[in-house]
């Protein structure tokens, strides 16, 4: 069965997977209006923030601790059908597919070159690397404001592309930083090397993420539901490493809870 009509979507919804993610602890001391990982926060599916490989990186999947295990799609395509989400405080939630993770790197690591990096091509619709974004995830809080330099292969397979990014403030634990790519680049195929300078304390991971969905909770304690019209039936894979981040109106992540339906057909 292929999902190509209301009828087939309804049929797929009848056997939809329901996945649930909630956090019973909050991450405090954050900067308002900045993205923060919930990966290691207490609750369901607790993961470990620190990466396990600095020289190759890994491609997390649905079996990675902190991600949600999905059932097989039996060779069919999968899609995000709905999201029911709430937060104990006002803020935003974003769901991504965590395609690649390398780390944890130190504040003073210089030109750590990666090799034999595992590929994540099969987790991108149409193998389109333009949907892959480069992020830094703070594993332990920084002292001083770091400058990150990441060399990568761009969406067209051109290697040796380099980007340097310095945030405005010292990143706190769990802080996520979107890293702008070099001029003209729109996506990333592979991370090639990682450097960090200036700061005196702190560790971090380099992530490649594919954004799937974002939602807003305008009032503390409010919940909302986004149906297929708002999720857009965005494509997910049975091995997708579903990764939740938050961006709060204040400095406390609050307690996010999210339930989403994945259909396949």
């Amino acid at each position: 069965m292929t999902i190509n009509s209301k009828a087939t979507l309804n049929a797929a919804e009848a056997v939809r997977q329901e996945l649930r993610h909630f956090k019973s602890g909050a991450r405090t001391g954050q900067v308002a209006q900045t993205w923060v990982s919930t990966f290691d926060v207490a609750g369901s599916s607790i993961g470990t923030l620190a990466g396990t490989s600095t020289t190759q990186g890994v491609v997390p999947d649905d079996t990675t601790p902190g991600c949600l295990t999905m059932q097989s799609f039996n060779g069919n395509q999968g899609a995000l059908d709905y999201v029911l989400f709430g937060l104990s405080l006002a803020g935003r939630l974003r769901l991504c597919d965590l395609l690649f993770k390398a780390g944890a790197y130190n504040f003073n690591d210089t030109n750590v070159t990666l090799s034999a990096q595992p590929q994540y091509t099969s987790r991108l619709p149409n193998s389109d690397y333009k949907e892959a974004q480069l992020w830094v995830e703070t594993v332990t809080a920084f002292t001083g404001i770091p400058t990150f330099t990441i060399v990568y292969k761009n969406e067209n397979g051109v290697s040796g592309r380099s980007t340097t990014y310095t945030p405005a403030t010292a990143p706190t634990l769990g802080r996520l930083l979107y890293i702008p790519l070099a001029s003209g680049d729109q996506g990333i195929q592979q991370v090639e090397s990682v450097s960090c300078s200036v700061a005196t304390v702190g560790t971090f991971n380099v992530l490649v993420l594919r954004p799937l969905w974002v939602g807003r909770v305008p009032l503390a304690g409010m919940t909302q539901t986004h149906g297929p019209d708002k999720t857009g039936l965005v494509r997910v894979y049975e091995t997708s490493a579903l990764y939740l981040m938050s961006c709060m109106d204040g400095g406390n992540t609050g307690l996010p809870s999210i339930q989403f339906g994945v259909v396949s057909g």
Partner: protein
Amino acid sequence: MADITTRAQLYTAMAFRQDVQIMKFGSATVDAGGFTSILNITGNPGTGTLAGTSTTQGVVPTDNDAGFPPINAFVAGNTGVLDRVHFGAGSQAAQWWLYDLLFKAGAYANNATAVALSSQPSYSARLPVSGGNPVYVGLQIWVEIATAMTGTPAWTVTYTNQAGVGGRTATISPGVVNPRLARMFQMNLQAGDTGVRSIDSVTCTGATVGTFNILVMRPLWTGRVALNNDGDSHPPSRTSMPQVFDTSALYLVMSSDSTTTGVVPEFTFGIVNRQSVSSPNDDDFIAACATRQEISWLRVIARTTTAAHNFSMLDIAGSQSGGVLGGSNTANGVVPDDTTLGFPGVNSFGGLNGYIDRIHFHNSVSSRMKLVDLLFKAGTYNFNNGTTTLTAQPSYLSRLPNGDAKGLQILFEAVTTWTGTATITVTYTNQDGVTGRTTPAFTVSAPIAGRIVAMPLQAGDSGVQKIESIASTTGTAGTFNILVVRLLWMGRCGAAGDGDAHGPYRSGLVPISDTAALYPIVLGDSTSSGTPEMQIGVVHL
């Protein structure tokens, strides 16, 4: 006559939607809480004329009249509806109403006494039909001040009611002293009446100066701009899909919370009509989700802005880095596309048609956000450039649905911060291919880098096919570009961190080209753009 009666038909119609725009760039003093026409304010479409042209017959205005946005012909014999409205305003909280202006008689003298009308043209063809008969119920009679009046006027109109009964009397004595130009008053129908078939005679008392018109209007939509820079997007569930016609004279009335119309109210009215084909329909759009392209656009630092004004984020760090604000060609201009630095790449549609079917958007500050297709860019010009006549301009018409240049906007974009006031004149070819059209007087006081200001069109125009010349004569420092854009979408972030997800009904399944230069514009409520984010879903089928 075929109506849209199923969701599948609505989706098909949405794929062929016409987005009709009304923007106003000037402002006027008004009475707080009073109804006001904005027909005579400069903008796009160009200025309309308040004064009516017939007191003894009246006329049935249409979309072809100056000041009204033109509407493309519907599929023969089929009906159309208003299915989506994007709206917002740079300043001034107000309530807005959209009407179909069915009939206009005037301008009458302040002492008009039982001026009789005869052989009035019928507007029955512009009414929904029930049981084979046009529905006159719900039509309203209005007074529109054509030139400011002195005194405390009161009006009496005799009319034929919804059932065809003549000799009925409508009155209004608003008690407003010296009503201003463009002020409007809705008249009270006689007890028991609910509509009007014709205006039969007109009387005014209590005034010594000024003129007025009598209007018959059919209400279509209303929306509220609750505060400066507010706006919203109304899907079919909020427009209620009122029937419109391909000759409708879409007429905006406002009631300001204060004593000004405010500046830059802008409306995009989505008009769809039943198609003679059955695809693409809702099933086709569901199927297309499997191959959707998700385009992420975001900025990681903010730009300093001027409150409630349009600003470019092209040269700000974030996704699709490398964008350059300054234009690269002053003699010909260029047609930017998805390969231009700073613009997101759009995957090929493989010869199929592409649509935006969903937008996730948020910002770290309260703001409005827009998405346009940047069709043409000429610059960088100096403040003292004088007049530059462009030659061999590349055409952007292939990027437009059906090559239709109606609704396109001319924008001024400050590349560097100005000292002094910019005075810009643009000569252009209008939507119908008429050359030598000129923008009305346009000035911007000391715009800062990145600021974008929409320019009004000449009276009677509603779009632009080509930029012909650009003149700048004032200021003491500063540079700028001239842009032509097609508005695709608008959204509002009502608070810091706010945003929304607009699905097919609110994004409107707006068609785009796979070479579109997708260009987000941000209007912060205060002096920062914030760090905006958009995720744009593009399907092709």
